[in-house]
């Protein structure tokens, strides 16, 4: 995906004296992809982001953002990349529109373009009525949305979002994730960091799990699930019918079956066997009440991975960091 890669990091390293904050990480983000940097606080996510933006020195390794080196050409990078910092701040004594005007002037937009872009951006994040309200009165969720409006106004090709959903209520989170999905629809690549695995799982195309400055795992959520949790798919069935369990166990690909309750069965399979299972139940004239496949949860993957390898301080990230 060389032609469509917007961020390419290779052996990126950041040290503070003796302490290593980011330790030889490599990853790439494609155009229009939502890439998640996930992991606990202090794992090196924010430091990685700051290095991508040229806001902190790079101790080692190479990084290219849209073909520019953030250390040497920070202005070219910052002109094309929008950044929403962790708990973004605005000038409380200015209105939402004035805050964006200041940024727009810094970017260098002329008056007409500036006003047009600001109006559009506020419209798209759902804040058109708050344009002339002071940011001091804004809720946390509105500030986050204003931060996204700033990125939209900038016309950024890459949006880098640091903990965009932390501290938001579920409703605001859903709205925010909706805006992030729209970024993708417009071909904007999104790099987002979070320690809230579940929330972010739903929007990310690919994720990198950070641990102590290294990328422990990288790939799509289902890839990681298979790699870490072993068995591929888990299908839950709730149905009534005699001898159902025996019949279901015979479906090709099913490797295990367990009774999880009265009339409830759980199938472990190496592929999605929902349609076959449904067909079996119907064929036996049973009553199918529920049929669902469990998406591997990032949290389960994460916990499983670090529980199974508590001492592992990966010496070579290469196995995971494809």
């Amino acid at each position, binding site marked *: 995906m060389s032609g469509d890669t917007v961020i390419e990091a290779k052996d990126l390293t950041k040290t503070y004296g003796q302490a290593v904050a980011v330790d030889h990480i490599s990853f790439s983000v494609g155009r229009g992809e939502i890439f998640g940097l996930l992991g606990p606080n202090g794992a090196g996510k924010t430091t990685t982001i700051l290095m991508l933006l040229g*806001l*902190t020195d790079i101790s080692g390794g190479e990084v290219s953002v849209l073909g520019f080196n953030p250390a040497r050409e*920070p202005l070219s990078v*910052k002109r094309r990349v929008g950044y*929403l*910092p962790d708990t973004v701040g*605005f*000038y*409380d004594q200015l209105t939402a529109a004035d805050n964006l005007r*200041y940024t727009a002037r810094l970017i260098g937009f002329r008056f007409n373009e500036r006003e047009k872009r600001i109006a559009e951006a506020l419209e798209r994040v759902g804040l058109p009525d708050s344009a002339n309200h002071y940011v001091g009165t804004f809720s946390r969720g509105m500030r986050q949305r204003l931060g996204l409006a700033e990125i939209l106004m900038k016309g950024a090709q890459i949006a880098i979002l640091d903990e965009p959903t932390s501290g938001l209520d579920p409703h605001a989170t859903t709205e925010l994730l909706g805006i992030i999905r729209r970024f993708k629809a417009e071909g904007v690549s999104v790099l987002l960091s979070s320690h809230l695995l579940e929330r972010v799982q739903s929007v990310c195309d690919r994720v990198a799990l950070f641990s102590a400055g290294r990328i422990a795992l990288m790939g799509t959520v289902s890839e990681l699930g298979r790699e870490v949790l072993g068995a591929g798919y888990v299908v839950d069935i709730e149905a009534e019918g005699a001898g159902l369990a025996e019949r279901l166990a015979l479906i090709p690909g099913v490797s295990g079956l367990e009774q999880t309750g009265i009339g409830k069965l759980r199938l472990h399979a190496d592929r999605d066997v929902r349609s076959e299972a449904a067909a079996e139940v119907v064929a036996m004239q049973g009553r199918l009440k529920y049929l669902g496949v469990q998406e591997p949860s990032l949290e389960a993957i994460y916990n499983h991975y670090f529980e199974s390898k508590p001492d592992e301080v990966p010496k070579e990230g290469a196995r995971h960091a494809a």
Partner: protein
Amino acid sequence: MRREGSAFNGLGVVMLKELADHLTSVRFIILELIVMLIAVGTVYVATQQIKDTVAEDPFLFLKFFTTSREPLPSFIFWLSLLVPVMAIGLTFDAVNGEHNRRTLSRILSQPIYRDALLFGKFLGALMTLAIALVVLWLLVVGLGLLFIGIPPGGEEIARAFVFLLVTIVYAGVWLSLALLFSILFRSAATAALATLGLWLFFYVIWPVLAGELATIIVPPDPRYTALGLQTPGTVVLEQILARLSPSTLFGEIVVAILDPTTRALGPIYLSQLQGAVLGSPLPLAASVLIAWPQIVGLIATTIILFVIGYVVFQRQEVRA
């Protein structure tokens, strides 16, 4: 390694924003009100004093700045007291404020360098103070005209104008000190206290301390003491030490500029008195020349403090 683009990208934008913020802030309005009151009060009192004086003075107008009547000190006393307070009040939270509001990383992720932000903040505050001081200056000049009704001469205006410029330079010293502390300390309150503390130290304690230190390092010669004179070595050292304080430098400049009869700042040697008509005024250029080292000293202090702040800021982590 050459950086891409200009370091001054966005400088004007930052400066204008800072200027607008300052001019509309409550903090500034309060400071300005205090200064206005003092200007009106001191000029009025000075007028009363001047009206009582019958002696002819070719530089009557400059007396507005320097004349005092008990219990109110003169205008320049208040100015030398308030300019640092205003300067510190404007910039003590310049950089740490952005940190604490968490706006710093967002602003720095725009296509500008940190240079533009810092320099813009300094220039914005300096312009704010300059505007305030120009207004104040015009107020004093106008009130003076109103109260005594004698138009000032060209040289008086020129001297008053130089005085205005020097005051702005003096403000610059405290601006860059406050800016430096706002970079060094993450808490705005700490930065304000540290800057005010340093200002008090230089304004109140240092002049006394300089004398004490000088006597310790160069003990007074008993032969001079017996004659009731000060030992030259001690006096010279005391002055050198005292001049480390910007307040002292400003005071000396003001004396040289506003009092045209000032021939030297510090001990006068016999050679300087040769051919001099004592009490006769010097031309403006000569007065400026006398104070030139002090003026350069103030400008240099401003630049040095700013550069230290600049270097620290460049290396600082932006993350909150």
